[in-house]
């Protein structure tokens, strides 16, 4: 919960891979993008999205099921034609004249993809390498990277859900793409595999690859992405770094503290006059107490609590999680 992953966009563009060159144009630019489905266009899957993904960023797209994440991805990849608006990927209009060239620099892991059951893992990668126009040399390395080297010769039919997901990821990595689209990449993975996955993603980011991923599991993504956009009913509700979103919303900070027995009244005394919300139970029983205070009063409250001396047994400052941001933007 103790989240403090503030990484400014400026720090990002000066990161690895961008050190020597002048500021790189955003690899993905969406302007007024809309997608309506249905005979009369009554389903607004994506509704007026403006978005710029900075070069080299690890960008998270968050939203509930049906928020429009996959549709947005498919439009950026040229699989779905927008009803309105324009999309530029790696400097080229999507599905424009030289977009085939751009595709060579893109990796994509679709949501819930089912690969070819009757091919082995290695054959699957060779097939996609052939289509990407890269040699087979990188295939064993890609399998190794996602932890599938031991299953290279087994048919995909025999793979578990998690192994299939890893294979899909390995496929996306073929040909060293500059831009990766990963749609709900960790579904079906166990916690260890999820850690492995984010380790690889962090390595890629270190190499200057721009990674865009979607998720509806906020807790998983908030500590890991550089910046994110929150999508709801096809609209972007908020956008920025995790810290920017928190600051912008000015959500209260929570202080969890443990007090030696019987000092409830003293606590009230030291906090008198400070903008703190105290719980009903004043901690006389010795349990953990949760106080909420506005962000700008945080330091004053902590200083006041120090006045309790050794009667204060423990103190934790909890920043609002992205979950709070997410639900905070909802109403």
């Amino acid at each position, binding site marked *: 919960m103790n989240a403090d992953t503030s990484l400014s966009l400026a720090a990002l563009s000066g990161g690895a891979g961008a050190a020597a060159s002048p500021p790189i144009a955003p690899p993905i630019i969406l302007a007024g993008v809309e997608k309506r489905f249905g005979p009369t266009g009554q389903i607004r899957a994506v509704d007026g999205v403006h978005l710029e993904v900075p070069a080299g960023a690890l960008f998270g797209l968050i939203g509930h099921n049906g928020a429009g994440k996959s549709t947005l991805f*498919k439009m950026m*990849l*040229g*699989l*779905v*034609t927008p009803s309105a608006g324009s999309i530029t990927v790696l400097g080229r209009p999507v*599905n424009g*004249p030289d977009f*085939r*060239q751009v*595709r*060579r620099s*893109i990796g*994509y892991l*679709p*949501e*819930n*993809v*089912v*690969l*070819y059951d*009757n*091919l082995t893992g290695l054959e699957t990668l060779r*097939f*996609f390498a*052939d*289509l*990407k*126009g890269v040699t087979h040399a990188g295939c064993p390395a890609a399998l190794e990277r996602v932890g599938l080297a031991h299953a290279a010769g087994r048919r995909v039919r025999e793979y578990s859900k998690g192994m299939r997901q890893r294979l899909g990821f390995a*496929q996306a990595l073929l040909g060293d793409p500059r831009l990766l*689209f990963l749609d709900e990449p960790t579904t079906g993975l166990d916690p260890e595999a999820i850690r492995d996955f984010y380790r690889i993603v962090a390595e890629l980011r270190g190499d200057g690859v721009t990674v865009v991923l979607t998720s509806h599991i906020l807790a998983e993504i908030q500590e890991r992405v550089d910046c994110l956009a929150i999508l709801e009913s096809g609209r972007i509700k908020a956008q920025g770094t995790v810290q920017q979103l928190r600051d912008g919303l000015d959500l209260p900070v929570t202080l969890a503290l443990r007090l030696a027995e019987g000092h409830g009244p003293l606590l009230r005394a030291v906090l008198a006059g400070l903008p703190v919300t105290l719980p009903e139970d004043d901690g006389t029983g010795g349990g953990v107490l949760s106080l909420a205070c506005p962000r700008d009063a945080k330091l004053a409250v902590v200083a006041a609590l120090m006045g309790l001396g050794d009667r204060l047994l423990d103190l934790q400052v909890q920043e609002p999680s992205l979950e709070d941001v997410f639900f905070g933007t909802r109403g």
Partner: protein
Amino acid sequence: MAMLDLHPIAVIAGKEFWDRIRNRWVLAVALVFTVFALSIAYFGTAQQGSVGFRSIDLTIASLVSLVIYLIPLIALMLGFDAIVGEKERGSLDLLLTLPVTRVEVILGKYLGLAGALTFSSVAGFGLVGLILSPQLNVAALIHYAGFMGSAILLGMAFLSLAVMVSVLALDRTRASGLAIALWFFFVLIFDLLILGILVVSGGQFGGDAFPYLLLLNPADVFRVLNVFSLDEVRTLYGLATVFPPALSHPALLCAVMAAWIAAPLGVAMWRFKP
């Protein structure tokens, strides 16, 4: 769709072809063809009181009436899944984000599957041809080769229809339904319909146009292609007078078959859009 790149077409075609080799589809279909063709060659004339190979023309005539049911069915079953199946599994999205165009995906799929069906036909009927060859003269061998070639064209035409269905249908279930409907229409209903029109109109309608109507059905083109190159059967069926000589040119009939291969594929490419 600026330019076609042959490389991805070959990669996709190769995968489809080797898939059918590896899952023994090619072997199974070749065996079916061999068994049916051999039984027809040796027992096909049993009702006339004799068992054993008698005449290549009669054998081909029986083979034609078998193959006209079998090959369209096999081709439709082979191809209906080609696009819609990958769409349902999600792998089509993956293919289309690679440097591959939609037209290239269709052509690759079609060529790979056509290769598998052709391989089965050549192996299955070719084996029977080899077995029969000691009893055949050169003319008979040419007839038999003609039958094999036309069977391959028939398969390719129905495979083209299958790929079209696979692009047009919203899901696999509908695609298989549509494929079966096409089979019923072209193999069973079409001829009855034409016959019905002829009978009801007392021969008024159609008449001269009747033979040309048969060109609207690739299965009938296949039948005509075989039947009217065989003198024995021509007299047997007594149809010689009805048929305009212009239509019994194999080259013309093959061109019509080629159109039946190209047109549905063209529709598939046209309708396969983001």
